[in-house]
């Protein structure tokens, strides 16, 4: 029996071997984005029925909820990478965290922005300071703080460490966002979809939302990997292997 077939995962912890792997994966994730986005948008605009209470306006849910989910999920992944980098001193971890932050910030912003557009016609207010909205705004600020802190420190390794501590401290906010509508009375309604109970949405609406969520997921992976590749080139610019790359030589 040979060991040749075993993939040595740790190999990919080095930027040098991760760079080409990410390059190979990116087109696949863009493809998957299209695969989920096209039916997702079709359901969003055509297949999903109007809502009994909210009419057509509820359709903003197909952007709002996937963006809000991603903003929370990306934060957890970013903090996990940051923590891993802090614990194991792996170089790639910091780059992953740095690569994820802007996408997470965009998702957080989109969830706040679409939420405001939804709130005005339905609730009668663009913004209220209830627990859900406030904690989601804090999440956005945490992303901005992480990006700013990393950018403010010139030495990449030190920037990673400082950012990692901020990212890990901020992780406590994610469960607060998620459970805020349960723990306190808020203007924001409770969860329609959760692991503990049957969804309270019509099936077509639910499918649309899940497809859109998957599309957002694939998009996030594709752009984050693209960003990580750029970060690798920047940080490893002094190394021989980067100088030898075709795209760098050209």
């Amino acid at each position, binding site marked *: 029996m040979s060991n040749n077939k075993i993939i040595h995962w740790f190999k990919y912890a080095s930027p040098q071997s991760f760079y080409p792997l990410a390059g190979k994966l990116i087109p696949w994730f863009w493809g998957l984005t299209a695969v989920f986005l096209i039916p997702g948008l079709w359901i969003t605009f055509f297949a999903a029925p109007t*809502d*009994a209470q909210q009419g057509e306006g509820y359709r903003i849910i197909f952007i709002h909820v996937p963006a809000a989910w991603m903003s929370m999920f990306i934060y957890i992944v970013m903090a996990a990478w940051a923590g891993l980098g802090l*614990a194991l001193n792996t170089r790639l971890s910091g780059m992953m965290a740095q690569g994820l932050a802007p996408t997470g910030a965009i998702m957080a912003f989109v969830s706040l922005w679409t939420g405001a557009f939804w709130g005005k*016609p339905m*609730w*009668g207010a663009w913004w209220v300071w209830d627990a859900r909205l406030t904690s989601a705004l804090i999440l956005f600020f945490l992303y901005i703080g992480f990006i700013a802190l990393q950018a403010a420190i010139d030495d990449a390794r030190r920037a990673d460490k400082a950012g990692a501590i901020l990212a*890990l401290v901020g992780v406590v906010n994610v469960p607060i966002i998620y459970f805020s509508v349960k723990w306190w009375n808020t203007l924001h*309604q409770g969860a329609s979809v959760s692991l503990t109970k049957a969804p309270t949405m*019509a099936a077509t609406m639910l499918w649309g939302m899940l497809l859109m969520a998957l599309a957002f997921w694939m998009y996030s992976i594709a752009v984050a990997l693209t960003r990580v590749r750029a970060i690798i080139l920047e940080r490893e610019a002094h190394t021989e292997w980067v100088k030898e790359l075709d795209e760098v030589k050209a």
Partner: protein
Amino acid sequence: MKPRHKRIALITGGLATIGVAAALVLNALNSNIAFFVTPTEVAAGKAPQGQIFRVGGMVKEGSLRRENLTVHFAITDTAKEVPVTYTGILPDLFMEGKGAVAQGRIQPDGTFAATEVLAKHDENYMPPEAQHAVDQAQKAQKTIKQ
């Protein structure tokens, strides 16, 4: 202990400490984080006296009355209710039997003079036909009970 293990222990310990601290702070702030008080809390005198606050619940069925531009309605949590007066534009989703949050203060006569009224919708999404079926079923159940 390798330095790596030490760091992992420090991170885990740090996260646990932050988690506990956050839980304690949120617990202490509990009543301040609530976006509105319920009519039962108002009846129990838990609402701030003479100050602006928000009261939330359902708009009581059959309580909505319009007088020129002023609307009168009651906000109920099925146990207690608060009579509300409001002059202004109501959100489209404002309806009897649906959720609403009013901001204002209690008047000497016990009514709640609102300066802002927001509609609170629930987490149920369904097409109008399905909603109709649900309403019919609930009506049927009510008749059976009577």
